[in-house]
């Protein structure tokens, strides 16, 4: 191979790898991102059951019910609309009534949100800023009562 051909082969190899990476990124961005909604937005958008999404809002006062076993159900509200959530597993330490929460999961056919992940506001690791922003937009934001940083 001449110098030029060698250089060309290196450049083509590089382009091939970049092309592969770009293709993967585009494909993954189309299929694996999750949108974030509040209960009002969910009722506006008429989402299909089975769509994966993140739900944010406040846990409604008095709505937590532990049916026994490890399944918990509660209501998430943005003070305009509410949505029933069912979750099997352990709730985060900072999960409280009246506090912000983010749940990830799918809507089932009866309109209940089946969560597989629940993050609490002031779960200081991954505090749902998304909730705060959305709630600020709707004017129902209140600073958390916990005194964490």
């Amino acid at each position, binding site marked *: *191979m001449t*110098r030029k051909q*060698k*250089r060309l*082969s*290196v450049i083509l*190899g*590089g382009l091939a*790898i*970049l092309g*592969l*990476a770009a293709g*993967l*990124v585009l*494909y*993954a*961005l189309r*299929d*694996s*991102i*999750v*949108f*974030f909604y509040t209960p009002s937005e969910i009722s506006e958008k008429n989402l299909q059951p089975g769509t994966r999404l*993140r739900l944010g809002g406040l846990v409604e006062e008095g709505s937590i019910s*532990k*049916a*026994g*076993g*490890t399944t918990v159900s509660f209501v998430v509200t943005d003070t305009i609309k509410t949505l029933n959530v069912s979750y*099997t*597993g*352990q*709730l985060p*330490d*900072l999960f409280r009534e009246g506090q912000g929460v983010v749940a*990830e999961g799918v809507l089932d056919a009866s309109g209940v949100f089946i969560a597989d992940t629940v993050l609490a506001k002031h779960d*200081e*690791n*991954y*505090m*749902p*800023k*998304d909730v705060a*922003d*959305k709630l600020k937009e709707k004017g129902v934001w209140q600073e958390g009562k*916990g*005194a*964490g*940083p």
Partner: protein
Amino acid sequence: MIAEIGHFALILALAVAAFQTLVPLIGAERGHGQMIASAVPATLLQLILVYVAFAALTHAYLISDFSVQNVFENSHSAKPLLYKISGVWGNHEGSMLLWVFILASFGGAVAVFGDNLPPTLKARVLAVQGAIGFAFLLFIVVASNPFARLNPVPIEGNGLNPVLQDPALAFHPPFLYAGYVGLSVAFSFAIAALIDGKVDAAWARWVRPWTLAAWMFLTIGISMGSWWAYYELGWGGWWFWDPVENASFMPWLVATALLHSAIVVEKRNALKVWTVLLSILAFSLSLLGTFLVRSGVLTSVHAFAVDPARGVFILGILCFFIGGALTLFAWRAPALKAGGFFSPISREGGLVLNNLFLCAACASVLIGTLYPLALETVTGEKISVGPPYFNLTFGPIMLPLLLLVPIGAQLSWKRADLFAALQRLWAAAALAVGLGVLVLIATERGPWLAPFGMALGAWLIFGSLADLANRIALFSAPLPTSLSRLAGLPRSSLGMTSAHAGLGLMIIGIIAISLWKVEHIVAMKPGERADVGSYTVQFVGEAPLTGENYTGRAGRFRLFRGEREVATVVSEKREFKPAGTPTTEVGLYQTLAGDVYVVMGDRTADGARVVRLYFNPLVSLIWLGALIMFLGGALSLTDRRYRVGAPKRKLTAAGVPAE
């Protein structure tokens, strides 16, 4: 008083940093000896001043001086000593001070250990270090003063976020910052070389140890962070593709690429422009990480303060250094003479491929991290890009790279015989495939990734061992000969072998926990049993608990294997003073074969506890692998040719052992 001394020292350091930037640069341009020589004392003076400031803040924390606002907000007199110290950097202002502290330390190290550098190059490197220091000192003095006083003086402090009160996390920031900031040295060398208009093998030999050191710190810092997330967050996972994790991972990927490309510059005088670009990019990603984490753009445990003004300030620093460096690069890089050429199938070709894959992988992580931010800015729509995205992009890009690692290490410089390289690896390949087949049989119709991933990890480990065995002629020469050859091997080649083998171990750990993790959520009353993996867990009961600065409940669990009791673990629910912030402590029983991971949750209506049980097979290998990679880096760093003051050896191209 001491706090004021610290504040004053910071302002002086700012002035000295300005001197350190300007005077040596002008001196180097004009060839003015005294101005060039002033770089070293200026650097050391800045170092001393920054140390004084850091010591002053540490002192305020140690004596719990709550008249300092920063101490009041982030400390508490009842906190254990270790966390009083780590509280210094467990907040925004203090962590920026730590950043500058480490930057000044690296600058000082170049000043002290850089005796063999040409004086103008050294002056320019120190000047660029000074400029970075100036920018961040200005940021601290103007926008995040850690020494602000409070009046009246509060009696008690607010305490440190309890999840941060953990030994691994006490040391995670210093290591991570040492990695981030260590990359500034490669950056400074790249800028100095661009101004100089000269990049050669000697340049690469000076840059590589600094990059290696930074890479080692990053490796340890990131793995400590992930270890902490594993046992402290109680989610049973070790890596979440959280934007903040990505922010530290991207510089690591590029630093890894840089480590490899610098070898090509050093040995073959090729890939110079590319290596300079990588040096710039690696530190740029460190700055981006600092911006993402410190600006409050991302909210996480790392975002201590959400203050837009600070974000804009760091963004300004980011734009100045990245934009400036890339402009300089575009202007001066064409002046760098291209070096020796090579065939695509050669050691150089392999390293180019390594760089391409690592950079593509880094780009995919970058896009996944920034895309939600960009989308929210442009459309206002909120999305999250989680593990599925990264599994789909990062994974497939890394797979071919991992497959090629052992082969690349066998290729010779300039032009290589691929067939001969593969021949030397047949035993490793056979062992790896054998393991894959065993896994395939054992897991029956499990996911295809399991046998493939295990074989891949084994391929990396055995490939590295085969390389070593070949090099010392194990089995083909008498044992004493082999041993004396082993002793004579360059440390850098042993370092490479260990680092690649460590990577293999890590892959095995990652694949095992990703595919074979057993998770079981049950409601348990005292005395009840549940199975997880090959273990049976019995909930003994719970008792009240009092710690130095918390109270809580401790749940005891007995672990059985068959009928034999192997251990007792304790999972705790703690409430920290002063705010009553709750945390959960995981009960962890670790073996090399796998961890039993017990998390006690809430009480159910009928008085049982929700308990989450995990069996995480082989998960320790992830951190063991990282540790071996770190040690490999350390071995490499002690190689003769980097040793300070060691006579410069002329390496003959023919006799250079492949490494």
